[in-house]
């Protein structure tokens, strides 16, 4: 309990340092652009692949569960669309990014800590927490909504291609299903979750990396902890946000 409270306290102290006034905004802008490429653009591939197959599996499972003459076949498209928008493209993709981006952030910052690069920044009079972490937070919070949109489109596309190829639905029914009773707020809900999840993944992982003490072994441990802690926090907030935004 004491360790939890101590970690919770040090997280908020770190956030206080991260969100203090940047020394030189032009440098931060340049760093943010680098992070957009590193944490955002380089995640498009994995998000696309996972979303395509996720959409395909959701479509096949929905078809299997609605295999009854009383259910219209357009329900397959409708079910796949809502599952993808409401849960899979925000939460599941966030969990995958917690693995990819979270471990990347924790190990990068942890290595900077053990190789004294963070000390070097502090010694120069640079707010190391803000200089290293703030650009990452801005980059993920700005870019992850695009990843979610890409995931939604790819997921629905994957469901359509596999659903029609496996002959569990027709192209006409699937397209009718994904248009039927569409509620635009679901997209807003999904994007709100994505922004909060992006913040959680980046800050929790950065916190783990920033406080590494020791050597490469501890950096590895911090990387693992970053994935576990950010995933658990993210799932907890998923419940809270769903209750707040959909009730």
């Amino acid at each position, binding site marked *: 309990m004491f360790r939890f409270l101590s970690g919770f306290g040090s997280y908020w102290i770190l956030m206080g340092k991260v969100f203090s006034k940047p020394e*030189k905004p032009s440098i931060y802008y340049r760093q943010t652009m680098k992070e957009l490429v590193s944490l955002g653009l380089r995640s498009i591939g994995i998000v696309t692949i996972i979303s395509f197959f996720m959409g395909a599996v959701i479509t096949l499972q929905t078809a299997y569960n609605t295999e009854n003459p009383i259910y219209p076949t357009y329900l397959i498209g409708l079910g796949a669309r809502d599952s993808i928008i409401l849960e899979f493209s925000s939460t599941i993709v966030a969990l995958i990014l917690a693995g990819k981006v979270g471990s990347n952030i924790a190990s990068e910052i942890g290595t900077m800590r053990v190789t*004294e690069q963070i000390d070097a920044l*502090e*010694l*120069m009079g640079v707010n190391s927490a803000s200089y290293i972490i703030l650009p990452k937070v801005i980059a993920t919070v700005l870019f992850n909504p695009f990843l979610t949109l890409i995931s939604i489109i790819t997921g629905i596309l994957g469901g359509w291609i596999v659903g029609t190829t496996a002959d569990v639905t027709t192209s006409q029914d699937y397209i009718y299903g994904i248009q039927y009773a569409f509620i635009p707020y679901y997209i807003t809900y999904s994007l709100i979750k994505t922004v909060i999840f992006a913040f959680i993944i980046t800050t929790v992982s950065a916190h783990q990396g920033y406080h590494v003490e020791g050597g490469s072994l501890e950096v590895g441990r911090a990387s693992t902890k970053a994935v576990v802690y950010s995933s658990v926090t993210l799932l907890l907030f998923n419940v809270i946000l769903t209750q707040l935004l959909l009730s």
Partner: protein
Amino acid sequence: MIRAEHISKTFGDRQVLTDISALFEPGKTNLIIGKSGSGKTVFLKCLVGLLEVDEGKIWYNDVLFTGLDFHGKKEIRKQMGMLFQGSALFDSMSVEENVRFPLDMFTAMSYEEKLERVNFCLDRVNIVNSNKLFPSELSGGMRKRVAIARAIALKPRFLFCDEPNSGLDPKTSIVIDELIREITVELNMTTIVNTHDMNSVMENGEKIIFIEEGEKCWEGNRNEILQSDCRLLNEFVFANSLARQLKNSSK
């Protein structure tokens, strides 16, 4: 000038530094020597403010450094340069970007002016045609020299070096020592070097402080070290037979 008064530091129950006082003068290479684990690095980190002291005061000229808040310390830190044990170059930046970093951060110089300063610093440490290389492509000695170039980019008044010779061959160590000594005189800096390299002690030791188990045991210069009667210092400095012969011949 840097003045440390009665510095003490503990980590949990462990007393790492006990009542250390010292005066480091400008234009001189001041050495802190001692065994591994004696508290040299902790003392150096306390001097630069990377670690908070439990007791004692640190003065930078007439400014009480230990009494300053974050912003006050930040102003003093702009006058500091530090060479870390592992060089601490930024992995994601090229040699040029590493040396340019403090200029980007704290000056309003144009790109051309910054580049001129970067090239001057790199030239000063004998690094040529390597601006676009990354730290992973450099040898240990080159990394140390680039780190020195970065440390002097803002023309600091205080230079700190934490074991600048660690991991280097004897010849490269001498090159680094000479470089530190020359730059110290050129820029009239107050330089403090942590070392347990005896070549450095004999070549650069204009002022030497010997620390043993967190306490200052001896203070003097490279000439006085040969005449010293301090048992702990003699055991440390004249650990091998060749060094003992040197000491005996000097008597």
